[in-house]
C-alpha cells in the first residue's frame, strides 16, 4: 500500500499558508448540497461540526452522550499552548514546533506539527472571542504559565478547568449552528459501523441508545473525532464511556491504525486504592510547576510509610530523594510526562514507593509554601513572621493557584494535601497513536477524516502537556474546514447519498447480527470482568515498560481472553431499550482486538521512544534509547483477524536534527 | 404592546409583579402600623377615630386604598397561580425531604400567603365592613365638627374576646414568616444582589419581618390586658 502523506512542497514555514491559498475549495451554493457526518463532540468534533456548519455544509453530528457538552475534553485541567509570546520569553511558532517534535521524540511529521504551532495562535483569539474566561493579569491581559517539557511560559488556562471552558466555547458555537439549522444534532447515538460505497466513506450505522434502533445515516464524507483509546487499559484517566469503537470499526473497514502502542502514562494521578476502581483521577501537570517529587532515600523509611507507621512529613530533608531534580537537573520536576512516569516507576520498583501498595511517590508543596509565603510577606510588608505564619501565607497563595485540585485530592483520598504531601502514581492518560491520516487529516479511505486524539498525527511518541487541547481545536476550527475541500471539491456533482443501498443494508445487518450474538451468549461473566482482565494484561505487558517476551505472551493472553469473551460473557437486557451493559459489551469487544494490535505494534517497535519503553533498548545510564536508523517511521497497521499487516510511512526530517532527548 | 404582554407572561415578568406588589404591600404595612399605633394612646380612642375618619374620607387616601386592595388581590392571584404552576412543573416529590440551607418560609410562601389572605378577609369583616355598613356608634369630640364613627369602640369590643386576640397574634406570626422571605426576595427579583448591600437588605428585612408584625400584635394584646 502506498502511504501518501500529501505534505505540500516548499519551506516548512510556508507550506500551510501556500497550501491553504491554492487548494481546491467548494463554492457556497454547492456546500449546501454536501452532507458531512461528524462523529464526536469533543474539542475536535464540536469545533469541526460548528465550523463546517458556519461554512454552509449540511452537517450531521453524533454523540453517545446525552449532550454534546459532556465529551471528555471537558476534563482537561491544565491549559492550552499557543505560540503567542505574550510572556516575551523568546517563544515563537518555530519554538513551539520544535518543542513538540522533540517532546514527541521525533516520531511525528514535521509539516503537521508546524501547522499545529501556526494554528495555536488563532485558537486563543477564537476562544477569547467566544467568551472563554481565560486567566488574566490585573492589567486585563491574558496570563500564562509553564508546563512540562518546555522552558517558556506559553500555556493559557482557566483555573484548573481549561478543557471545560474550551469545550463549552465549542459547544456554544455548535449550539448556535444547531439553532441555525446547519447542524443536525444526534444525541445518545453511537456509531457502530462505517459504510463505504465504491471505496469512499459514505455514512455510518448508529444505534439510538434509548430505543436500540439501528439507523443508517448517509453523507458525502465522514469525520471521526472520537477521541483516544486509553480505556483499553480499563484503568485510565479517560471517562468511563471513552472507547475506540467508531475508530476501530473504520479500521476494520480498511482504515489504517498508526502507532497504536504509543500511549501516554501521566505521572501525576491519584494512586489506585482498590479493586473496585474503574477509573483513575488525574492531578494536573501544572502541579509540577510548584510541587517537588520525591521518595524516601532509605528503603526502611519507605516500608514504614507503606505500613502506615511513618508519615511523609516525618522524613527529614536529608533523607528525601528528589529523584527528578537529581536525575534531570536542567528540567527538574518539569521533565516531560514519559520521563517523569518512568522515573517514578523505577523508584517504586526499587521498593521506595510510599502507598500501601508501594506504588506511589510524593508530590510535595511544602517548599513552595515557604517560598510563596515569603513573597506574600514581602508584598504585604510583613517582617518578623514566624515560620508557621509564613507557611500559612504560602498556603493561601498555593490555594489561589491550585485550590480546586487540592480540594479534589482531599475529596478523593480523605487526606489534606496542605499538611501531608500528595501521593501520586502514573496512569494511562492519552493515546498518541490513532487512525492514520495524511496532511489533509484524511485516512486512507477517501472521504473519511480523523481529527484530534482519534488520529495519530501530531504528538509522535509522547505528547507535551497542554497540547491535546491545542490539537483538537486546531484540527476542528482551522484545519478540517480547509482540507475537507480537497475531497469534497470533487464531489459537487455527487447527488445526495442514499441510505438504502446494499452497502448500507449489509452494514446494518452485520451490526444487528453482532448485537444479537452478544446478547445470546448468556454466559457467566459480566462485561466489566472481561474489561478488567483485559486491562490487567495490557498494563502488565504493554504498560510503562515492555519487552519482547511479555508482548508475545500478552498477545496470546488477549486472544485467549477474546475467545472466552465470545463464549462466556453475560449481557443482561435486550437490544430495544436503554441498555448500558450492551453498549459496554460492544466497546469491550473492540478493545480486545485493539489490545492485540497494540501488543504487536509494541513488539515490532524494538526501540524506546517517548511513551514507548522497550527494556531491550536502553542507554548505558538507563535512559530510553531511540533507534532512528531502524524505526524513524510511522507504523500503520492494516487489521486482519489472523495477522495484521504493517505498512511503513518513513518520517523525513528536513528542518530539525534528530538528537537524543536530554532533559539533564 | 405585544412586548409588554410577552413580558408579563414570562416567568421573570410575573416575578417582577410579585416583587413590586409585594414591596408596595410592605410599605402599606408600615403606614398601617403607624396609624394603628394610635390605638395605644390613652385618650379613649379619640386620635384613632379621627385617623380612621381621615383614612375613609380623604379622596387621595381612598384612591390609594383601592389600589391597595387591587395589589393585594393581584399579589395573591399571581402568587397562587405560580404555586399551582410550580407544583405541576415539579411533578413527583422526593421520598426523602432535603435538608439544606433554605428557610421553611421560602418554601411555603403560597401557604403563608393564602392564610394571610384569609386573615385579611376576617380582619376586614371585623372592622372595615362595620365601618362601611354604618354599624358603629357615633361620637363627638371637642373641637371636631360633627359626629364621627367610633371604630375604637369596635376594636375594644373585639379584643375583649381571647379568640380574636389569639387569631390576630397568629395572623401576625404568619405575616412575619411571609415577610422573612418576601422582603429580601423582592430585592433579589429586582436584580439587587450585591456582596456589599445584600447583607444589609437581609438584615433590614429580618428586622422588618419581626418588628412590624410585633407592632401589630401588641395592639390586641394591650387591649385585652387593659380592658
Amino acid at each position, binding site marked *: 500500500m502506498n502511504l501518501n502523506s500529501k505534505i505540500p512542497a516548499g519551506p516548512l514555514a510556508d507550506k500551510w499558508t501556500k497550501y491553504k491559498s491554492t487548494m481546491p475549495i467548494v463554492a457556497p451554493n454547492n456546500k449546501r448540497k454536501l452532507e458531512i457526518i461528524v462523529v464526536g463532540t469533543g474539542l475536535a468534533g464540536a469545533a469541526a461540526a460548528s465550523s463546517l456548519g458556519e461554512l454552509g455544509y449540511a452537517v450531521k453530528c453524533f454523540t453517545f452522550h446525552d449532550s*454534546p457538552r459532556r465529551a471528555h475534553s471537558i476534563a482537561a485541567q491544565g491549559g492550552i499552548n499557543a505560540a503567542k509570546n505574550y510572556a516575551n520569553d523568546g517563544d515563537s511558532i518555530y519554538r513551539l514546533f520544535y518543542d513538540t517534535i522533540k517532546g514527541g521524540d521525533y516520531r511525528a511529521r514535521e509539516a503537521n506539527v508546524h501547522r499545529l504551532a501556526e494554528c495555536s495562535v488563532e485558537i486563543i483569539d477564537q476562544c477569547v472571542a467566544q467568551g472563554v474566561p481565560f486567566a488574566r493579569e490585573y492589567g*486585563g491581559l491574558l496570563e500564562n504559565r509553564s508546563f512540562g517539557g518546555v522552558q517558556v511560559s506559553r500555556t493559557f488556562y482557566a483555573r484548573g478547568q481549561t478543557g471545560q471552558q474550551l469545550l463549552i466555547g465549542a459547544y456554544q458555537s455548535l449550539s448556535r449552528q444547531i439553532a441555525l439549522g446547519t447542524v443536525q444534532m444526534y444525541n445518545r447515538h453511537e456509531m457502530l459501523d462505517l459504510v463505504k460505497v465504491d471505496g469512499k466513506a459514505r455514512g455510518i450505522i448508529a444505534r439510538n441508545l434509548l430505543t436500540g434502533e439501528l439507523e443508517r445515516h448517509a453523507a458525502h464524507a465522514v469525520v471521526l473525532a472520537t477521541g483516544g483509546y486509553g480505556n483499553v487499559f480499563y484503568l485510565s484517566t479517560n471517562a468511563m464511556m471513552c472507547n475506540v469503537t467508531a475508530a476501530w470499526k473504520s479500521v476494520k473497514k480498511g482504515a489504517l491504525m498508526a502507532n497504536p502502542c504509543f500511549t501516554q502514562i501521566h505521572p501525576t494521578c491519584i494512586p489506585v486504592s482498590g479493586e473496585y476502581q474503574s477509573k483513575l483521577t488525574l492531578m494536573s501537570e501544572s502541579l509540577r510547576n510548584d510541587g517537588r517529587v520525591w521518595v524516601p532515600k532509605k528503603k526502611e523509611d519507605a516500608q514504614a510509610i507503606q505500613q502506615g507507621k511513618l508519615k511523609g512529613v516525618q522524613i527529614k530533608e536529608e533523607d528525601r530523594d528528589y529523584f527528578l531534580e537529581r536525575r534531570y537537573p536542567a528540567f527538574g520536576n518539569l521533565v516531560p510526562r514519559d520521563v517523569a512516569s518512568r522515573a517514578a516507576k523505577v523508584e517504586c520498583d526499587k521498593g521506595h514507593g510510599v502507598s500501601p501498595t508501594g506504588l506511589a511517590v510524593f508530590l510535595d508543596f511544602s517548599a513552595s509554601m515557604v517560598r510563596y509565603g515569603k513573597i506574600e510577606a514581602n508584598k504585604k510588608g510583613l517582617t518578623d513572621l514566624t515560620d508557621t505564619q509564613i507557611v500559612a501565607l504560602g498556603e493561601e497563595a498555593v490555594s489561589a493557584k491550585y485550590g480546586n485540585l487540592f480540594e479534589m485530592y482531599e475529596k478523593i483520598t480523605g487526606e489534606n494535601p496542605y499538611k501531608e504531601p500528595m501521593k501520586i502514581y502514573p496512569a494511562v492518560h492519552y493515546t498518541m497513536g490513532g487512525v492514520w491520516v495524511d496532511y489533509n487529516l484524511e485516512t486512507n479511505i477517501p472521504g473519511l477524516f480523523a481529527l484530534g486524539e482519534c488520529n495519530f498525527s501530531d504528538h509522535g511518541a509522547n505528547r507535551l502537556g497542554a497540547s491535546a487541547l491545542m490539537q483538537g481545536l486546531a484540527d476542528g476550527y482551522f484545519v478540517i474546514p480547509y482540507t475537507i475541500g480537497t475531497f469534497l471539491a470533487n464531489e459537487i456533482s455527487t447527488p445526495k447519498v442514499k441510505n438504502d443501498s446494499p452497502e448500507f443494508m449489509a452494514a446494518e445487518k452485520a451490526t444487528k447480527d453482532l448485537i444479537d450474538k452478544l446478547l445470546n451468549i448468556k454466559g457467566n461473566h459480566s462485561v466489566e470482568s472481561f474489561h478488567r482482565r483485559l486491562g490487567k494484561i495490557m498494563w502488565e505487558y504493554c504498560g510503562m515498560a515492555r519487552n519482547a517476551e511479555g508482548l508475545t505472551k500478552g498477545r496470546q493472553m488477549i486472544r485467549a481472553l477474546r475467545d472466552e469473551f465470545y463464549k462466556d460473557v453475560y449481557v443482561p437486557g435486550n437490544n430495544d431499550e436503554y441498555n448500558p451493559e450492551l453498549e459496554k459489551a460492544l466497546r469491550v469487544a473492540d478493545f480486545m482486538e485493539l489490545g492485540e494490535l497494540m501488543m504487536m505494534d509494541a513488539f515490532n517497535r524494538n526501540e524506546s521512544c517517548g511513551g514507548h519503553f522497550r527494556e531491550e533498548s536502553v542507554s548505558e545510564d538507563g535512559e530510553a534509547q531511540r533507534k532512528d536508523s531502524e524505526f524513524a517511521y510511522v507504523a500503520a497497521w492494516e487489521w486482519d483477524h489472523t495477522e495484521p499487516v504493517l505498512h511503513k510511512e518513513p518520517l523525513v526530517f528536513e528542518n530539525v536534527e534528530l538528537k537524543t532527548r536530554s532533559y539533564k | 404592546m405585544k412586548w409588554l404582554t410577552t413580558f408579563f407572561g414570562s416567568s421573570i415578568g410575573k416575578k417582577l409583579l410579585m416583587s413590586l406588589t409585594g414591596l408596595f404591600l410592605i410599605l402599606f404595612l408600615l403606614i398601617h402600623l403607624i396609624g394603628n399605633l394610635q390605638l395605644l394612646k390613652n385618650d379613649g380612642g379619640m386620635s384613632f377615630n379621627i385617623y380612621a375618619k381621615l383614612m375613609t374620607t380623604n379622596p387621595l387616601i381612598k384612591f390609594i386604598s383601592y389600589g391597595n386592595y387591587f395589589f393585594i388581590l393581584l399579589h395573591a392571584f399571581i402568587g397562587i397561580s405560580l404555586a399551582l404552576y410550580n407544583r405541576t412543573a415539579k411533578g413527583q416529590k422526593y421520598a426523602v425531604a432535603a435538608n439544606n440551607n433554605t428557610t421553611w418560609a421560602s418554601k411555603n410562601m403560597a401557604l403563608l400567603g393564602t392564610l394571610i389572605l384569609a386573615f385579611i378577609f376576617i380582619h376586614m369583616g371585623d372592622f372595615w365592613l362595620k365601618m362601611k355598613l354604618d354599624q358603629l356608634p357615633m361620637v363627638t369630640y371637642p373641637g371636631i365638627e360633627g359626629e364621627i364613627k367610633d371604630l375604637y369602640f369596635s376594636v375594644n369590643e373585639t379584643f375583649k374576646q381571647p379568640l380574636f386576640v389569639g387569631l390576630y397574634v397568629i395572623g401576625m406570626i404568619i405575616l412575619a414568616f411571609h415577610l422573612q422571605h418576601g422582603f429580601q426576595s423582592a430585592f433579589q427579583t429586582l436584580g439587587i444582589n450585591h456582596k456589599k448591600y445584600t447583607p444589609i437588605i437581609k438584615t433590614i428585612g429580618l428586622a422588618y419581618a419581626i418588628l412590624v408584625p410585633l407592632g401589630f400584635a401588641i395592639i390586641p394584646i394591650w387591649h385585652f390586658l387593659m380592658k
Partner: protein
Amino acid sequence: MSEDIKLNIKVWRQKNNKSAGGFETYPVNANEHMSFLEMLDVLNEDLVNQKKEPVAFEHDCREGICGTCSLVINGQPHGPNAGTTTCQLHMRHFKNGETIVVEPYRAKAFPVLKDLVVDRSAFDRIIQAGGYISVNAGQAPDGNAIPIGKNKAGKSFESAACIGCGACVAACPNGSAMLFTSAKVTHLGLLPQGEVEAERRTEAMVAQMDKEGFGMCSNIGACEAECPKEIKLDNIAFMNRSYFKAVFGGELE
C-alpha cells in the same frame, strides 16, 4: 477490615418513561474509600452476576466536571456534601448499616427515561436559544485586543464553571431552571465580547426556559445550596437585570 461498611440501597427502579416506577432495596457491601458511583458499580456487578438487570444511572468522567452524573441521595441532589458531585462523593460520609435512598431528579422538564436516568436535553435547547457569542471560526481579533479586568474575568469564570448537571432544577421545589440559565447569561454578559448581544440572548434564553416547562423561581435558594459548582444566586439577579434592560431599554424590533 474496619473500612468495610454494609449498606442498604433503596433505589428507584423504572423500566422506561411510559411505565410506573417504585423503590427496591438492595444490600451492598461497600468500602469507605469508594466513591458513591463505585458503590453502585459494586451493586450492579452483583446484580449482573445474579442475572438481574443492573440499575441504570448516568456517569462519565468521574472527576466532577462532565455533569453527567446526577442522583438525589437522601433527598439531596449529588448527596450531602456541599460543592461535590455524586462521582466525587465518597462512602466515608455514610454510616455502617445505613439505608440510603437514591432517586432520580424530579422535574416535569426532566422526564425519567429509566431508573435513575433523566432527559436533560431541555438544557441544550436553552443554550441553543442564545447561550453563545455569534462569532465564526477565523473572525476573531487578537486575544489581547480587549483587556478584561482580572476580577471580571474571574466572576465570569465562576458562572462559566456550571457543568449543566441539572442539580439546581432537581433541588428547586418549583423545578425552576433559573440558576442554570442565569449562569450562562452571566458568564457571557459580563464579558465585553458577550455584552454586544446580551439583550437578545437573555430574552431568547428566558423564553426557551419558560417554554420547556420549568417552574418559576421564588428565590428559595435550594439551587445555590445544592449546586456542585457553587454557582451563586447573584447570577439570577444579574439575569433579571439583563432581562429588564432588554425589555424596557431595548428597541422594538
